[in-house]
């Protein structure tokens, strides 16, 4: 087949045509773009491998799996073309290729199912894939790379359509190092992240949106993967947001997305609700009730400042960082040991950093480059949290880059840029450390690269190999990580802070940053990161920016058409209290402190300096054991055991009316029952009971009842308050 050079006629192709509306896609200046195969010679890397990817041959469920399939193993999504060429052309005496009779080649007869193929018929005799494959074999099945792919350009990158049923034609242009720009749409695999929302016709490269909302389609050509965002508004009616309060750039960006999706916005909350929300979010503690705040004259910014400068803030955010860094003692002869002293040293170090207002970049640098006795120098405990250097790579990149590099241990990451060299290059740095109580440099430490069987060279993820004579590469890694141009570090942290207050990450999961998992509000994420860096990586500053936005102050009660919104912040997300916060809140309301291990009586759960301290109550409430990542959202109300424990267990029932507790004391002061109930409402919910509640509660509380019955009724009411959704949720 003669190679076709199809020069696009100027402005001939109007891409992304939508049903019932004019495309906004700018036509490609055509004289620069060619389609089809640009050369007479078939390029193995730029033509054949993408074809195999598009057909699904090298996917994880087929020959791209770790052990291949049917004794035929390809690299996942063509990550290592050289190995694929050897597998196809060289292995087993070259039996998959028949140069004398290309159409008898096993590499063709299998997918065409002339011989039995577990994957069924993948190509037809007369389709363009077959022609390309046969042509390549006719040319000698060579491993030829004519040019290097630099990037791909997808059109449209983002599309806002008016209504469901909208269709758009997708186009992918490949830009190569020799200046060639080529239309590779026919060699690109398009995958919808939710096939119930967007369907793809791969033959015509058309995407059709069948459900309103924001959806992602992944375009994959060769080693490049690019997301395409398709948006269909929730409603046909345009919403008027001109009167919505905009306190800072957060609101500007949030309202842009809300307008695009035509979502209704919930109103701002009253002061008591705001106080409970922000106090729980910044200190992990219930607020002290103040009747004056019901008048609606609260200076919210001043409250945020006050909370951020409190001891409780330091305690709570130390707890959050300690969870992130998996601080807990563990003594197991088969694992690396973290002593209780080391866990506490690290916890105390973090607390001091927060007290001092240290920049997060400085904290990260000290942690990454830590050496010494972990019982004396807390950051060294970072290197005893996991068992070995490879897990350290997974852990470090998850914490500081919000990135899951684990896949690249065994193969190049299928959905991200990480290669095995990246993973094992970083692991090589961590391999040069002793993993005992004293962390020290070990010049003999090495990480064997699974591909080469040799010691891996140190390498910056996505960057250069370090010189062979580099001793401890962690300084270089820390420099790279905390550089202003690092695309991960600042974003990963502000995204966690955002989730901490808003209930949902701009990138979710928060430890899964990659190009194929784009942020819901990329411009906002960029601005937050920029602002974070401009303010010395100050955690308090970013928390304040978010906490003083109108978006943060929005009610969690949906209105109109925003009920289904779970990521555009048209209403506040309801956040389950973290297990430790819930346990403390129960203790505070009941006025009876819980006992944790041998800690001093009155120690709060969020103040525990060692996540390994035993507590059945915290475990049942869903405490993360910190053996693995604690990034998931806690859900204390979902598992049955947790719910039963909360309803029926000793955590509540043994302490409701216990001697010395709040209820017991108030009964002894001979307060009226309804007054006691009111006090509990204020302590637990930061509000008074409303009329309907008073009416109902009055029926239960009869001043004439004997004291024992009165006490039982009050215990029941307190129990109800502490198990109601309003209490266990930050709303």
């Amino acid at each position, binding site marked *: 087949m003669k190679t076709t050079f199809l020069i696009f006629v100027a402005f001939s192709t109007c891409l992304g045509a939508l049903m019932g509306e004019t495309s906004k896609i700018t036509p490609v200046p055509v004289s620069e773009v060619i389609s089809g195969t640009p050369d007479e010679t078939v390029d193995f890397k730029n033509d054949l491998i993408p074809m195999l990817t598009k057909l699904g041959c090298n996917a994880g469920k087929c020959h791209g799996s770790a052990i291949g399939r049917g*004794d035929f193993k390809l690299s996942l999504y063509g990550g290592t073309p050289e190995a694929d060429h*050897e597998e196809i052309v*060289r292995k*087993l*005496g*070259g*039996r*998959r*290729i*028949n*140069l*004398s*009779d290309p159409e*008898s080649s*096993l590499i063709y*007869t*299998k997918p065409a199912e002339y*011989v*039995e193929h577990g994957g069924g018929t993948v190509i037809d005799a007369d389709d363009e894939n077959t022609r390309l494959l046969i042509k390549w074999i006719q*040319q*000698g*099945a*060579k491993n030829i790379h004519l040019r290097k792919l630099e990037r791909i350009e997808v059109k449209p990158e983002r599309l806002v359509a008016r209504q469901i049923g909208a269709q758009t034609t997708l186009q992918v242009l490949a830009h190569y190092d020799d200046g060639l720009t080529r239309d590779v749409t026919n060699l690109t695999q398009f995958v919808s992240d939710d096939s119930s929302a967007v369907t793809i016709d791969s033959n015509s490269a058309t995407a059709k949106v069948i459900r309103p909302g924001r959806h992602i389609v992944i375009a994959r050509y060769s080693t490049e993967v690019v997301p395409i965002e398709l948006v269909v508004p929730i409603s046909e009616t345009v919403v008027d947001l001109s009167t919505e309060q905009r306190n800072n750039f957060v609101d500007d960006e949030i309202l842009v997305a809300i307008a695009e999706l035509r979502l209704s916005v919930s109103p701002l909350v009253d002061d008591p609700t705001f106080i409970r929300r922000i106090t729980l979010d910044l200190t992990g503690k219930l607020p002290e009730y103040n009747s004056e705040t019901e008048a609606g004259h609260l200076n919210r910014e001043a409250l945020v400042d006050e909370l951020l400068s409190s001891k409780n803030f330091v305690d709570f955010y130390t707890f959050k960082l300690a969870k992130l860094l998996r601080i807990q003692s563990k003594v197991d002869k088969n694992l690396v040991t973290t002593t209780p002293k080391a866990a506490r040293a690290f916890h105390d170090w973090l607390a001091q950093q927060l007290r001092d207002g240290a920049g997060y970049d400085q904290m990260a640098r000290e942690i990454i480059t830590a050496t010494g006795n972990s019982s004396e120098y807390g950051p060294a405990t970072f290197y005893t949290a996991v068992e070995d250097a490879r897990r350290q790579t997974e852990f470090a990149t998850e914490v500081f880059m919000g990135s899951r590099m684990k896949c690249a241990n065994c193969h190049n990451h299928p959905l991200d840029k990480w290669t095995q060299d990246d993973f094992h290059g970083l692991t090589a740095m961590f391999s040069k450390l002793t993993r005992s109580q004293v962390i020290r440099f070990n010049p003999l430490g090495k990480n064997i690269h699974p591909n080469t*069987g040799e010691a891996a060279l140190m390498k910056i993820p996505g960057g250069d190999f370090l010189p062979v004579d580099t001793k401890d590469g962690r300084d270089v890694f820390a420099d790279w990580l905390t550089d202003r141009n690092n695309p991960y570090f600042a974003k990963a942290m502000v995204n966690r802070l955002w989730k901490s207050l808003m209930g949902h990450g701009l990138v979710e999961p928060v430890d899964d940053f990659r190009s194929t998992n784009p942020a819901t509000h990329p411009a906002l994420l960029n601005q937050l990161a920029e602002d974070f860096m401009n303010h010395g990586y100050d955690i308090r500053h970013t928390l304040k920016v978010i906490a003083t936005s109108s978006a943060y102050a929005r009610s969690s009660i949906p209105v109109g058409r925003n009920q289904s919104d779970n990521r555009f912040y048209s209403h506040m997300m309801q956040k389950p209290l973290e297990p430790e916060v819930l346990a403390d809140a129960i203790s505070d309301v009941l006025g009876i402190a819980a006992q944790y291990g041998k800690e001093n009586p009155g120690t709060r759960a969020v103040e525990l300096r060692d996540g390994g301290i035993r507590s059945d109550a915290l475990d049942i409430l869903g405490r993360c054991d910190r053996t693995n990542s604690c990034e998931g959202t806690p859900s204390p109300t979902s598992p049955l055991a947790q719910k039963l424990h909360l309803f029926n267990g000793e955590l509540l029932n043994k302490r409701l009316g216990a001697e010395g507790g709040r209820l017991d004391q108030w009964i002894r002061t001979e307060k009226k029952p309804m007054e006691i109930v009111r006090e509990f409402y204020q302590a637990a919910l930061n509000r008074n009971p409303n009329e309907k509640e008073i009416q109902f509660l009055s029926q239960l509380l009869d001043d004439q009842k004997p004291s024992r019955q009165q006490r039982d009724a009050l215990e029941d009411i307190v129990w109800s308050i502490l198990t109601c959704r309003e209490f266990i949720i930050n709303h």
Partner: protein
Amino acid sequence: MIDQIKCWPTRAGLGLFSVLIASLPGTSLLIGQEPPVTDIAFAPDGESLIACSQKGLQVFSWPKLKLQSTVKVSFANLHCLEFSPDGNQLAVGGGNPSETGGIEIFSWPENQSKIKLFHHDDSVMSVFWQGNHILVAASLDRLLTRWDLKTKKTVKIYQGHSRGVSSVCLLNNGEMVTAGHDQSVRVWDIESGKLIRTLNQHTKPINSMAAWPGSTGKPMVATAAGDRTIRFWQPTIGRMMRYIRLESEPLDIAWINESQIIASCVDGQARLVDAENVTVLRTLPVIQGWAYAIAPHPNDQTIAIAGSDGQIHRMRLQKNK
């Protein structure tokens, strides 16, 4: 014909050989136009070298490597060659990938097809003669078949490998040893078909196996695998004696005396290995591409190596002075 002779320094002590290289097959290398040569075998008189590939059987003069004849075989892919002990028959194994596997027996030196034996669902990768009328075939369909050429029927089927079988040989004690892509070496009672033991030390598929030519002591075999090792076994007692990891994956191995083995490798190089001290004595660049097959000459001290793009090269082993 070009003779590029390079002298290599000799090794004191054990090795008594130096190696000379080489000659090209007569035409310039045309990458991608010739199928790979997958196996080679010297004719019993040493005057010819037979090579198999998708082009069929090719008979070359030795040492000049001049193509004398090409013989068509009944299947597309040819993988192995083995002369019968009397030298009158040549067994060729192969198949049509994922469809059939079989053996075709040719008379030698007439090159007349005498018998075609098809039983397998995939290509035969190795054959071994047990006398002049019985042979064993190892196939990618995971089975081994033992054939009686007089009746043209299978007399035994050996089932046990979980992936394709790449190599088979018989020990002088009557046991059969097989090696496969399931990374295992298996020892069988050839008559009963009973699997005696399985040896699992390899960590990648095994490409080739060669029985030790010595006659004293316990039988020994060497295996070459994708884990880049050559391992030396005493299969009758189930022991791996030693191993060596090469810089490149060995595809084929052949003993050149009782203490030295030569391997043809994925990087196109031949490696001479001291089997007792498990050290590489020499590394010689030979093939541009993969070196699939290696065969020592039966009489003189030369070796043939073949591989990608139809290449066949000649090396000379020279006694150290």
